[in-house]
């Protein structure tokens, strides 16, 4: 790095469990190091030590990348940071920023915290920003959904914005390159899905779509392409995708498949229910030894 003026990054934490922070810290370590070398993370409430949030707010300097973890609320009865509501702080910070990135589902649309009905004002960034504050933004808000978001998605997004100044985003504000494919893509259980072989808890074999509630075929994410912690994904391990990158997360009854007379209520994105059921019927008539047997037998 010869250029000594690195783009500045401010990480603001609002209503959160800190899961996205720990997700970032769990990134591939050489990627994290490259990121820390290439950007200047000038503020993170739990990691940095040089500046306080107040100093950031009082400083005249622009923020190149404002990253926000957590949902936002106007309600000071339930949530304040340094005596201000997260809404006020977000607007102040945003007015200094060039790029605004929502890190995780809570920052994107409220996520789990929006389920706390007694606080009727828990929302994502987009909903809580005043027009005035967004004047200086060079790009639409980027929503990196996920509960938590994959650390590599954060790193790739920041490098891309920094190198190219723009990214194609979908109607939810998510980078298309990360969210146009489904969690289902790359799942090691795909063959079982094709041949309609049902899985069970605690087994390597079978697909989790039929009983365990897997949302892989309806969830836009690259969990099975860019593996978690470099090594795995939930569906590979045996846990269904719970659709944490979609705006309807968290849904009810996440660990079971909603069915109607034994037939999954929802079928994969992009196919009619009738067509899907006919394929299922045909596929089920085959007995494929390799798939019906235990893998390790």
């Amino acid at each position, binding site marked *: 790095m010869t250029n000594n003026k690195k783009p500045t990054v401010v990480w603001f934490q609002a209503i959160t469990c800190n899961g996205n922070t720990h997700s970032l810290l769990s990134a591939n370590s050489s990627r994290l190091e490259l990121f820390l070398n290439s950007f200047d993370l000038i503020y993170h*409430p739990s990691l940095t030590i040089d500046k306080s949030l107040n100093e950031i707010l009082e400083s005249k300097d622009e923020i190149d990348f404002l990253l926000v973890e957590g949902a936002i609320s106007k309600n000071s009865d339930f949530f304040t940071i340094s005596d201000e509501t997260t809404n006020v702080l977000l607007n102040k910070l945003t007015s200094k920023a060039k790029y605004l990135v929502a890190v995780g589902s809570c920052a994107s649309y409220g996520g789990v915290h929006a389920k706390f009905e007694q606080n009727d004002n828990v929302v994502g960034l987009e909903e809580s920003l005043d027009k005035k504050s967004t004047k200086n933004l060079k790009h639409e808000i980027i929503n990196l959904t996920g509960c938590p978001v994959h650390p590599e998605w954060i790193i790739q997004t920041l490098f891309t914005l920094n190198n190219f100044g723009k990214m194609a985003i979908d109607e939810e504000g998510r980078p298309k390159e990360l969210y146009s494919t489904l969690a289902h893509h790359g799942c090691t259980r795909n063959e079982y899905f094709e041949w309609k072989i049902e899985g069970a808890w605690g087994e390597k074999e079978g697909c989790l779509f039929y009983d365990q509630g897997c949302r892989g075929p309806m969830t836009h994410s690259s969990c099975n392409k860019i593996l978690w912690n470099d*090594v795995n994904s939930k569906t590979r391990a*045996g*846990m269904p995708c719970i659709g944490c990158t979609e705006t309807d997360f968290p849904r009810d*009854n996440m*660990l079971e498949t909603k069915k109607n007379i034994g037939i999954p209520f929802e079928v994969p994105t992009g196919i009619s229910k009738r067509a899907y059921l006919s394929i299922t019927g045909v596929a089920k008539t085959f007995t494929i030894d390799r798939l019906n047997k235990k893998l390790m037998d």
Partner: protein
Amino acid sequence: MKTVEIVERIEGEAKLNCSWDNNVISDARIDFLNFRGFEFILEGKAPLDALVYTPRICGICGQAHLKATVDALENIYENINEKLEVTPKAKLLREIGLNIEIIDSHIKWFYMFILPDIIKLKQNDLGIYQPLKGSRWLGASKTASETIKSLAILGGQWPHTSYMIPGGVVTDPTLLDLSSMMNYIDTAVMFFEKSVAGVSFDKYLDFDSRDDLNILSGDMKYFTNLAFENSFQKIGTSHNRFIALGESSLFKTGKIRQRAINKLDLSKVREFTEQTFTIEDRANPKKHTWSKAVCYDNNFYETGPLARAMIGNKPFIKELHKSFKDSVFTRVMARMDELAHLLDNTKSLIKQVDISEESYIKPKINLKDIDSAKATSVVEACRGSLYHDIEIEKGKIKKYDVITPTVWNLGPSHKEQKGIAQKAIIGSKSLDIAKIVLRSFDVCSVCTTH
């Protein structure tokens, strides 16, 4: 004189209110002003959905919440006389997962949350310990992220997996998976030998006297020197009472007041709310925090690694405690000592997994068909004892109560007694010291108020 200070660089934020007398803190109060309402969110949900929600109470100790939830749900079965069969394999895989998370948390806590503040008391240049830049900080962060891979092998990812489920676990690791897990743990063992303790692992595990402090040469030694320079062996003492609710192959249940007792009666665990905001009552001047207070048999007890070492008879820490009581020094050393024992224990647990056993045995009854039942569970999490209490009615969650370790340590006073951290802070000579005392408990405000 009174001062109010906002404490950052913990998990979340806390407000420290101090009264001063002759430049010494004569009274202290800790406020946690944020509340996310998890217990309310859980009401009316399907019982299994709690496995997805409760890990999201906290991004760093989610597996402890997951384990507490799965135990509570299994205890529900037991309470309706349908005790589930859970294989030793599934039990091991749960304990291993939880251990790994604690290992990750202890490494991060030492290097990210406590060491920089202590070094800063003396010098401006943090050198290799500089957050985000220093080689040791980066080494610690790398070690944590390598270690956590072994949990991702089981859970598919970390943070936030729900791989434990009533009846077992969803995962079915191969021998190769188990060996990779062992490899990742070994990365942390190497880091412990080289950087944390600076002595061979086996030698460290044999530590049993105060003199062993002289054998240390890594960052624990560096910490020890800084601690003695700042008299941390004398400050931060609290009630000197300890509790551990949960148990595992490494941890023992019990409490120490005057003497150690290994039997606890969970009905003596009680929460108090005289000083705690409620949804209906935020304006009451008596109330100042969202944290409740929790007592065992009406007394405050410290929970966490120091408590576990005392109750579990860990010789090195017991010896340090003889000389230095429940001081900042002993507390920090207990957490780092626990790191070594966790690494050792986790490796041996991985070796015990018999992959030919089932990972999961299906319960005969669906939780949704249960008309009414209650259950409690206790688990040892990174920061101490975690308690979950669930009530199901007509197949839905009617009530869910969570008491986190930080409520034990950081909750407000009750009747005449000062809370654990509150009492420990009194006597500090500066705000910087007070903050270190507070941090010695490994503060997690998101957990405290949940």
